[in-house]
């Protein structure tokens, strides 16, 4: 055998093994076909490759293809290209985008987090580290002294936002995170509470969306109504009991 490249290749495009036209095109197996597909013997033992027509052998459909590319060319020349010129242009993401995290604050600027560890517990990547301390205000109990997210481990699944019972951690629209050192990749409280991220347009995945406020107000009303109804029912019951006594 010679060392020269053999020209056989795998493709034998126009040989005689092609037996039939591909009648199975878009065929739908149904009850009537069931008999055909019973048993091993009915899996086709010989393959039936596509058989090109004469026009295809003569490269004629290439003209049609060139027309397609020409149409795209003209359209792209005079129309708008789908390419986004990042970083000058940015993709418009929805307000559900799961980007860099934000720790929200109370009106006085202190962190809203109460260090309950639910986010750390829910995190599948185990990337949240919290150290808690007593809060001077007895109504708040705890606050995080250290709150760190390892951005290299984080998979941006949003489980921490789902888990948070205080709306203390939400996500922003910020997706371009780049670092020079590994130690920069651990986002601490200072990183997560950067005030510029609180622009409403830059917010991402969070439990509260403006357009859902009506729905939430309705839910709250219902919840209050429920409590009110229960209270009234209880009062009525007590009144009835008092009357009975």
């Amino acid at each position, binding site marked *: 055998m010679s060392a020269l490249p053999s020209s056989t*290749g795998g*493709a034998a495009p126009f040989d005689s093994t092609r037996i039939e036209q591909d009648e199975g095109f878009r065929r739908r*197996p149904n009850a009537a076909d069931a008999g055909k597909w019973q048993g091993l013997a009915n899996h*086709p033992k010989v*393959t039936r*490759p596509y058989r090109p027509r004469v026009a*295809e052998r003569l490269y004629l459909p290439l003209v049609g293809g060139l027309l397609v590319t020409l149409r795209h060319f003209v359209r792209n020349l005079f129309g708008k290209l789908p390419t986004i010129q990042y970083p000058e242009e940015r993709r418009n993401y929805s307000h559900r985008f799961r980007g860099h995290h934000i720790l929200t604050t109370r009106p006085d600027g202190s962190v809203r987090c109460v260090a309950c560890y639910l986010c750390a517990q829910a995190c599948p990547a185990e990337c949240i580290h919290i150290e808690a301390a007593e809060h001077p205000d007895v109504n708040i109990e705890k606050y995080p002294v250290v709150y760190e997210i390892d951005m290299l481990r984080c998979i941006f*699944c949003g489980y921490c936002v789902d888990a948070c019972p205080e709306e203390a951690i939400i996500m922003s629209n910020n997706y371009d995170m780049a670092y020079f050192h590994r130690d920069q990749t651990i986002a601490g409280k200072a990183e997560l509470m950067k005030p510029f991220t609180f622009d409403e347009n830059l917010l991402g995945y969070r439990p509260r969306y403006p357009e859902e406020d009506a729905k939430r107000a309705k839910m709250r009303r219902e*919840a209050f109504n429920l409590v009110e109804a229960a209270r009234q029912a209880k009062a009525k019951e007590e009144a009835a009991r008092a009357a009975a006594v």
Partner: protein
Amino acid sequence: MSTIASPPRPETGELAVLAKFPAGSITPQEGLDQPTWIVRREILAELARELRDNPATRFDLMLDLGGVDFPDRTPRFDAVYHLYSIPRAARLRLKVPVDDTDPLPSLIPVWKACNWFERELYDMFGLTIEGHPNMRRILCHEGFEGHALRKDYDAARRWILTEDKIYQPHFDLPNDEDDLFERMTVNIGPSHPAMHGTFRLMAVLDGETIVASDVEIGYLHRCFEKMSETHNWQQVIPYTDRLNYCSSFINNVGYCRTVEQLLGVEVPPKAVWARTILSEFSRIMDHCVCNGTTMVDSGGLTNFWYMFQPREEIYGLLESCCGARLTVSYGRIGGLAQDLPPDFMERCRHLLAIIPPFVDDVERLVEKNRIWIDRSVGVAAISGEEAVNWGWTGPCLRASGVPYDVRRAHPYDLYDTVDWDVPVLYGGDVYDRFRIRMLEIRESLKIIRQLLDRGIPEGGHITSDPHVALPPKEACYNQMEAMIYHFKLIMDGIQVPEGECYSMVEGANGELGFYAISDGSSKPYRLKCRPPCFPIFSTFSRLIQGGSLSDAIVSLGGLNVIAGELER
């Protein structure tokens, strides 16, 4: 719409086989989601052949082989085979209790699909297989010690793996010694663009013809199955995103359906509806990626752009639903993570309008193009019978003429309520694999169109069972009870009752199955993923043998092998 799978079919054929074997060697296990036999390992090889060849059973497809470790039991391990019969649409699970000291018979003579699955079993559990031609690790590095999926293996353990012990290729060379000095061994990958990032192909060439080849996989192996044993049921969902990352939502659905089946939870109609639509969009996306990159591999860059434009737009839809484009994590056990966005319908309608022109353009560019026809017709062809024996499923199998589609054979979600076709082609080559994906894109669009016409169903996006789904945030802030459920679910996780089940969906490249075993705690005891492209890729060496090297590149593209899913 219930997600609970239909009860097992009557098993008359199985009973006939059962009677042929001595009493006590097979014990049927009752009360499971599908017929299950506990089989003694001595009769396994004989039984497998009988199950395949007996006309009453005809289990022609070996879907999955995985192990389960019970450290306190003797024998310690279970080797679990999932069999499927395409003509009968029946399933059977074989459990073979075995210890690591007694070897299992290799079932490669019966189902060639067993080849890699048996290597995986050895790699992950240390079970030995008798008669396997290449009994080596497959997913882990050669220098790895221990077996990762054993319960006594510490998941946090770290290894330093060096070049000292490196995978030595195993070639099935034809035995003509005269030619040996003419041959050349070429290594391609793992960091080679044509190998899609992480596969390593070693080929023995004679000129340009591949005489023999071997592939090494595992560069993306992260032992997803071990990780799911150390996380609770809900936390596994982001991990499933990373299986087939081209259509991550389908993985979410497949996994969630499995757990829902174990839990017996009813999924609200809105979630089922949205799952069906988004699964189909994900399928379109996956097919776009596969066909686009196949064309790039063979030199046609234009199609890549035309195919990636619809994909971008679908990413936009997914992002508006859940906030991420690639790894969506949108499914939750019991429904969806969030409600559908207000503009969901308009976005879907927009996609339905823009996808077909791109598909038409690509078809017009390449389908009748002799350059592409010469490159792909007859390349890496496989007959349906052979493909089934190798464990193929999905579009690649349907391109070989076998009309097996999970959505048709075992309808889930809303697939039995819409009118759609299973495209089947008979070429079994790269050209037909390409074409069948184009046809499937159109079928998916048909499904989506019909579902959109029905309108968004009323109701919530996730089940209201507080033991499964987190209560709405508003309730959590205002009601004590909801708050308690919220804490309980996050801290303890979902308590899944003891049991096991195998549940499958039609992934973008074949049957994606999850076999879950729960011991009643908040974490899976064992979660086995049935990756559709694992058996498909195991055929690769055989497929490219005798073809030229450039054909190997094209055929890899056509198989749609996704490393994240292959190597888990």
